């Protein structure tokens, strides 16, 4: 198998994992972002801090937390295994969990800032015109906050694509099943296969640059052409 062929499988897997992780983060990020922007409850800033932790904690710490939590003997993992026979460790779904935890703060932070920037008068205007709360959210708040959320989402996608430490600890390195691009790079370098590493590194870099350029164009404060 040549270097280009061996790069295709981890790339496809990385895109799948990053795609799912981003989707999970988008849903969670919008929900929690709205809660943090609009909710008035004790411990709000503490919740924000806890949810932002993955951005500052070493990935190995997160990997260990996840291993202890969703491992076969972890308190959530043991329950899942007994009730449903689900084992998350060494599966691509496990990699999705690792990536989504690591990337969640990126969506959450942007979503919270975007929701806070929405003028309450505009929402009130919607209410006065007879829109339900759900309709106000879907037709006023979300469209106004959308660009900020989207920029955060793209960053989350790039971060998920590059996730390594926690993924390696939770999902392991099974070629074709859990061996993502970043893990494949690590393994190629360890085995001294510089040719494979070069191809994988180039693919990862170009994908992330493309995502960052796209995110840059969507950042609030710039005009869309």
């Amino acid at each position: 198998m040549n270097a280009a062929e061996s790069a295709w499988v981890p790339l496809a897997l990385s895109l799948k994992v990053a795609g799912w992780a981003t989707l999970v983060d988008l849903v969670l990020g919008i929900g929690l972002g709205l809660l943090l922007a609009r909710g008035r409850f004790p411990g709000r800033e503490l919740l924000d801090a806890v949810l932002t932790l993955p951005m500052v904690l070493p990935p190995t710490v997160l990997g260990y937390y996840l291993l202890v939590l969703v491992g076969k003997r972890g308190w959530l993992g043991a329950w899942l295994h007994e009730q449903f026979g689900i084992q998350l460790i060494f599966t691509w779904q496990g990699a999705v969990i690792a990536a989504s935890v690591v990337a969640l703060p990126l969506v959450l932070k942007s979503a919270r800032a975007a929701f806070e920037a929405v003028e309450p008068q505009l929402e009130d205007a919607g209410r006065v015109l007879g829109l339900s709360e759900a309709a106000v959210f879907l037709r006023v708040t979300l469209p106004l906050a959308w660009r900020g959320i989207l920029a955060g989402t793209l960053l989350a996608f790039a971060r998920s694509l590059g996730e390594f430490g926690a993924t390696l600890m939770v999902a392991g390195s099974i070629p074709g099943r859990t061996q993502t691009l970043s893990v494949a790079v690590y393994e190629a370098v360890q085995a001294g296969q510089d040719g494979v590493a070069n191809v994988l590194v180039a693919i990862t870099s170009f994908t992330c640059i493309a995502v960052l350029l796209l995110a840059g164009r969507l950042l609030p404060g710039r005009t869309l052409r």
Partner: protein
Amino acid sequence: MRSIRPILIARRAAALTLALMATGLAHAADVTVSAAASLTQAFKALAPAFEARHPGTKVLLNFAASDALLAQIAKGAPADVFASADQETMDRAQAQQLIAAGSRRNFANNALVLIAPADSRLVLAALSDLKQPGVRRIALGQPSGVPAGRYAKGALEAARLWGDVEPKAVYAQNVRQALDYVARGETEAGFVYATDAAVQKDKVKVVATVPTETPIRYPLAVVAAGPNAAAGRAFADFVLSPAGQAVLARHGFQAP
């Protein structure tokens, strides 16, 4: 005036940072030892014993899979001693002229074992038992980068079982990660060295000793481009001395 001060502050900050970083750099008297992951406990015990005999020399230990250590040394990592878990990796180091001529010596032997979580209820006594459906995942070192994985793959191929094991294989980055996977119960079985299994003997049980095609013999050598070759040679000598061998024996390694 206004533009000068930030530059001054930046300069002072840079000087301070460099001074702080320099205190962390290796001193001339330090000896850096890159050793296979399976040697972790044994070499951590060897280091203070060596330091006691060579006052002023500090041993810096770097553990990883043998192939990873070789890749680091090939890229110019400042190691003085390289201790590998197999002959093949050292052969490659020799072929790339990374080790000092005549410094290669075997210093310990080990055995490959099949392990299972201590509370496993599966009947595992021979390699062929890995075929049973109850064994869903098997941890072993990545054969392309971890000697313990190569030994395991070789033994399974010799037993004509690789085709059954490969779909269940979970590859670890070094032998200790494979040990950890089994100890946490994430895989039903795994391949590690006898000395590794002893490190977690309350969490894993040895179910079989696996015959390998070539004996598991650990070589060490002085790195040709090492910054402190003299201390490197002294450390290598110490590992092979009766005192060094006694430490290795205490950690379950056999004499070479």
